């Protein structure tokens, strides 16, 4: 096997995994702590991409656009929580799904009205648009390294926030017993609003980071939200650590499957059969993994202890 290619693909897988983590961490926070199923999480990811794209053209600089888009997305998330999501907490999960599915349709159409159907390609500054040669033969686009760095940084920051700060303590407490927390004089509504806004910001950041690679487009949320759900189910709903590890596993399995499955299949079957079955199987790999993990650990790999 070609080890240079294996190394490059591992980095590609890591990058995909970290991007998935940004989306999945927000989803798992909201699902695990607020006990709320948010299908519209992907639409916030899309809004992050579009807002950042518009700001990039307005300000002429991608990094400034990201810095300004982040608080905007946080505010949008907070407003969605106050106006729509809040009234759904008391209902069952099926109502959450129905309500947020409606929200997807509304947000997608809103994006269609504001930005048109065409999608926006986001230009990068020259120094980010190049490539870095890590060592002989291993050349990686600079921007993908930036995604890896940002993703890792956010992951560490989140773990610190949830495990070592007062806000994190309140978040964990709210997850185990929200009535008790509010009885102790904590404004649980404000807390939930903040958690939702945090989740939205993380999803928005993921959208901003993917936009220069693909583009900001209608329906981009629907493409990632299913995978994000797979990640949080594998990782254990509500666990940041689980989401992180599961995201990396899913990213690696997906990328390596796409890269090497056809070569492996060609060893055991005819070239034609391998060419037609490898893409189908590699598209299914993460779901097969999810099914296998659920068979042995129905709660996921790292279910939160308190629940």
């Amino acid at each position, binding site marked *: 096997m*070609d080890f*240079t*290619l294996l190394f*490059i*693909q591992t980095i*590609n*897988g890591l*990058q*995909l995994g970290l991007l998935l983590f940004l989306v999945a961490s927000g989803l798992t926070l909201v699902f695990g702590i607020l006990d709320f199923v948010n299908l519209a999480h992907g639409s916030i990811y899309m809004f992050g991409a579009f807002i950042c794209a518009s700001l990039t*053209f307005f300000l002429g600089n991608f990094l400034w656009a990201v810095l300004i888009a982040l608080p905007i997305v946080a505010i949008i998330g907070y407003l969605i929580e106050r106006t729509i999501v809040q009234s759904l907490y008391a209902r069952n999960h099926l109502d959450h799904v129905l309500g947020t599915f409606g929200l997807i349709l509304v947000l*997608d159409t809103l994006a*269609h009205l504001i930005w*048109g*159907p*065409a*999608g*926006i*390609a*986001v*230009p990068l500054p020259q120094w980010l*648009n*190049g*490539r870095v040669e890590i060592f002989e033969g291993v*050349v990686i*686009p600079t*921007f*993908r390294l930036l995604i890896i760095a940002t993703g890792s940084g956010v992951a560490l920051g989140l773990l610190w926030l949830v495990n070592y700060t007062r806000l994190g303590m309140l978040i964990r407490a709210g997850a185990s017993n929200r009535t008790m927390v509010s009885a102790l004089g904590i404004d649980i509504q404000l807390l939930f609003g903040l958690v939702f806004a945090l989740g939205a910001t993380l999803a928005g950041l993921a959208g901003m980071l*993917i936009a*220069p*690679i*693909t*583009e900001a*487009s*209608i*329906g*981009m949320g629907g*493409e990632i939200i299913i995978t994000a759900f797979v990640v949080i189910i594998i990782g254990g709903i509500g666990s940041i650590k689980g989401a992180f590890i599961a995201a990396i596993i899913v990213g690696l399995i997906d*990328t*390596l499957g*796409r*890269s090497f499955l*056809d070569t492996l299949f060609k060893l055991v079957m005819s070239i034609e059969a391998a*060419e*037609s079955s490898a*893409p*189908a199987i590699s*598209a299914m790999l993460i779901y097969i993994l999810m099914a296998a993990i659920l068979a042995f650990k129905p709660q996921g790999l790292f279910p939160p202890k308190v629940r």
Partner: protein
Amino acid sequence: MKKISAIIAATLIAGISMTALQAKEVKVGFVTTLTTGGAVLGKAQKNAVNLAIEHMGGKMGDLDINLIFADDGVKPETGKQATDKLVKQDNVDFVAGYIWSHVLLASRKSVLDAGKFLISANAGPSPIAGKLCHENFFSTSWQNDQTPMAMGEVLNQQGVKSLYIMSPNYAAGKNMVAGVERTFKGKVLGKDFTKWPGQLDFSAELAKAKASGADGLFVFYPGKAGGAFIKQYQQAGMKDVMPLYTVFTVDGISLPKFQAGNLEGVMGSRVTQHWDPTLDNAQNKRFVADYKTKYGNYPAFYAAQAYDSMFLIKSAVEAVGGDLTNMDGMRTAMKSANYESVRGKYTYGNNHMPIQNFYLREVVKDSEGAWTTKIVKTVFENHQDPYAKDCPLK
């Protein structure tokens, strides 16, 4: 009371459908993509159809045109439902449109079983050209294999010895790959069929392509996947190592976006097509000029084919003097392709797929600095698709 209002309602409905029958009009259903990311292609087609109707003065012969647009959402099941509604509820005379091969394959039976005409303004999947061909089906585009076959020929002429191929994993994607492999004489070093329509990140496949060391990279990524692909191709720095050859990826829809995003990597890249905005004939000049004035950018091939589909229908309606029950007359008229097409004169094969020229086009800047394409040369003259022989029609 309830009964009375029901009777009144029934009378009203009957009255409306009576007037509809009496009115002299031709009903055309147009199925395209009006939502999701694919809506940008559908919008181009819708614009072109509206422009065609405007150019016709709103009439085909003596008949008014009653046009109904429907959305497929890039999903076969949604497209089929929309088609069923057009055929059963609206009772249209013609169903045209269809950008996506899988949507057309799912919807064709609904139209043809009802005894209506089906006009594809884009998709050209191989079964419809071969075993599933039908006397009431016509195409104003191409069979999927043809455009990549022309590209395979271009690759041979340019001395490309080895090729890496990437394409989405659905009906058209497979036809495109089969097409280029049919004419390309060199060696195919690797092939990737990527998940469709979900996958937009091609890092793994690009790394494989680069590692293969092929002379060239052939891809088919229509719609927004094309923009994503070109960006990543440029970011991976492959322009100097592995020249890009595309079909249906770089077009009038993606070029303005590439220009806005400053993706210089696409400049000079080569594509094959049956049509180009610079083709020199009166119909095309009028179409391109008026489209640019009205909508502000160059029309893409999606628009050109949609525009043609309306004029093909018009030629049929006029040939039978507006007698829409004369199916045989309209069929014969369409079979002769006796209308002004923006691609110039072409003919129909036994399977009702066009026999037409294919050109090599290059991405250039026009006199005002807008990114567009021009024709480099003719690759195939009067080219017929390879599936026509499987079609039992004469």
